[in-house]
């Protein structure tokens, strides 16, 4: 398809000079235009591609994504609760090319960091001056014995990537008898969306309260306590769903049996009618292609947090859930990584110093019922040598309310528009 960077350099005969001064080489044909390739059109990648074009109109941007549609994890718990359907959380990519982004429907399978080329499953070689990896998470299905088999048999899903598994879990809940038990497991942190499991418990409880009021929820938490917004969720469980949610801390799932319909912890085998096991996670597989999963567990990627450039691979930036930091793994935060990263790349390609004091913010709403939500919000300022430092007054609401539910709905519409249009 496109001329790759190496070939372009050969053709132009400018190899050495271009390699020495990144920003000179291009795959687009006009030698002056730098080329940035972004891998993954989720919250982080799509936003980064858009802002690269906005702030760097002279930069060519290629965005590689295998999926036809963007299915949002935010509000996917609302689908389980019956507040939204799959169509409501599914959006097209059709407005991104309007920003001058070249969309490539493909999956990256190899990266040559020295030659600065990515290779796709479809056989394309695409050269870059700078590369952005925004692949989200890989779910470690091997860490829970029996999960893969139960998943393949359609018995147990994680639904921690929104899509067919979300719809499947909703169907399982609809088919569950009144008086049945929904068992959900939460992985040890860090995982995608700290409050997500507890919001899910609220949304499932909301549905069961109306449709199957004799049912129970058992929440097996691999953590010693509720990881995020504890007062908010405890208040919701006690107020709206008294007696329905059985919360068990320090109950990491070790095995799942889709035949017997049990989740086993180190203490006991917990039986349920619907099992929702969320295994541990790590940075998306594409990060491993450049050795960027370089934290002490070889799970997440360490980056220069002022530019999001990988500490393992030069000219490769990593944003979103794949990054190891004190910042929460949220879609909102991924859009903020994306903006800081885009700004840094624009400056670097222009030979300027990136903003030394970037600021990012997180806002994460969680619904606690069909008409109430609460939030956690923080601003983080970068300080050299320290990373992102949380500004004073950040924090979470202790109680959900109707006003925040309307803001939650508005937030979803606005962030989808911010990412995709």
């Amino acid at each position, binding site marked *: 398809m496109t001329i790759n960077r190496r070939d372009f350099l050969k053709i132009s005969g400018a190899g050495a000079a271009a390699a020495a001064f990144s920003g000179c080489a291009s795959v687009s044909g006009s030698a002056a235009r730098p080329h940035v390739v972004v891998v993954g059109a989720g919250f982080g990648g799509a936003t980064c591609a858009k*802002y690269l074009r906005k*702030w*760097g*109109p002279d930069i060519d941007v290629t965005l590689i994504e295998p999926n036809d549609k963007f299915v949002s994890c935010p509000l996917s718990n609302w689908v389980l609760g019956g507040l939204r359907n799959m169509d409501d959380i599914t959006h097209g990519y059709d407005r991104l090319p309007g920003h001058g982004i070249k969309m490539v429907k493909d999956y990256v399978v190899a990266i040559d960091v020295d030659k600065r080329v990515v290779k796709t499953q479809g056989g394309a070689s695409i050269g870059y001056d700078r590369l952005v990896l925004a692949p989200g998470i890989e779910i470690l299905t091997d860490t829970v014995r029996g999960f893969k088999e139960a998943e393949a048999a359609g018995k147990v899903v994680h639904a921690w990537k929104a899509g067919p598994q979300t719809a499947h879990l909703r169907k399982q809940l609809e088919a569950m008898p009144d008086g049945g038990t929904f068992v959900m497991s939460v992985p040890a942190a860090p995982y995608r969306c700290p409050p997500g499991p507890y919001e899910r418990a609220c949304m499932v409880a909301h549905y069961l309260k109306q449709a199957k009021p004799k049912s129970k929820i058992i929440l097996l938490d691999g953590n010693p306590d509720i990881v995020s917004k504890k007062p908010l969720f405890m208040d919701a469980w006690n107020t709206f769903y008294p007696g329905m949610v059985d919360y068990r801390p320090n109950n990491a799932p070790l095995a799942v049996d889709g035949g017997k319909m049990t989740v086993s912890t180190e203490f006991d085998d917990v039986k349920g009618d619907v099992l929702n096991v969320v295994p541990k996670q790590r940075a998306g597989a594409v990060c491993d292609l450049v050795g960027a999963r370089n934290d002490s567990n070889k799970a997440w990627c360490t980056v220069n947090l002022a530019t999001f450039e990988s500490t393992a691979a030069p000219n490769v930036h990593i944003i979103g859930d794949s990054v190891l930091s004190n910042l929460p793994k949220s879609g*909102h935060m991924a*859009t*903020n990584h994306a*903006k*800081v990263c885009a*700004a840094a790349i*624009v*400056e670097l390609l222009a030979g*300027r*110093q*990136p*903003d030394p*004091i*970037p*600021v*990012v*913010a997180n*806002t994460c709403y969680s619904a606690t019922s069909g008409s109430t939500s609460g*939030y956690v*919000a*923080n*601003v*983080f*300022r970068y300080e050299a040598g320290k990373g992102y430092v949380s*500004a*004073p*007054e*950040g*924090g979470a*609401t202790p109680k959900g309310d109707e*006003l*925040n539910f*309307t*803001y939650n*709905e*508005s*937030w979803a*519409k*606005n*962030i989808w*528009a*911010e990412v995709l*249009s």
Partner: protein
Amino acid sequence: MNRKTTLVLAGFVGLAVSGLASAADMHTQSIASTCMSCHGPGGKSQGAIPSLAGLEKDYFVKSMKDFKAGTRAASIMKRHANGYTDAEVEAMAAYFASLK
């Protein structure tokens, strides 16, 4: 207005004229863009969250000051307002006032 703000604003005026990003205003554009994850692309919101595009600069500055001080009731904005310096608020106010 302190020197830093003036520099940021000077950069911003440059942007408005040329339509291109310049080094001086990148910080302002970057922090203003973080608002857009809630307030919508270009500061144009759908639904209950207010739009920021085209807000009067003084109104924006006063709102943020009042959120910070706690003299204006807010659900979430006190937590955000506290994260920005006065100079940054001024610069963001000028930026959003310029958006249509």
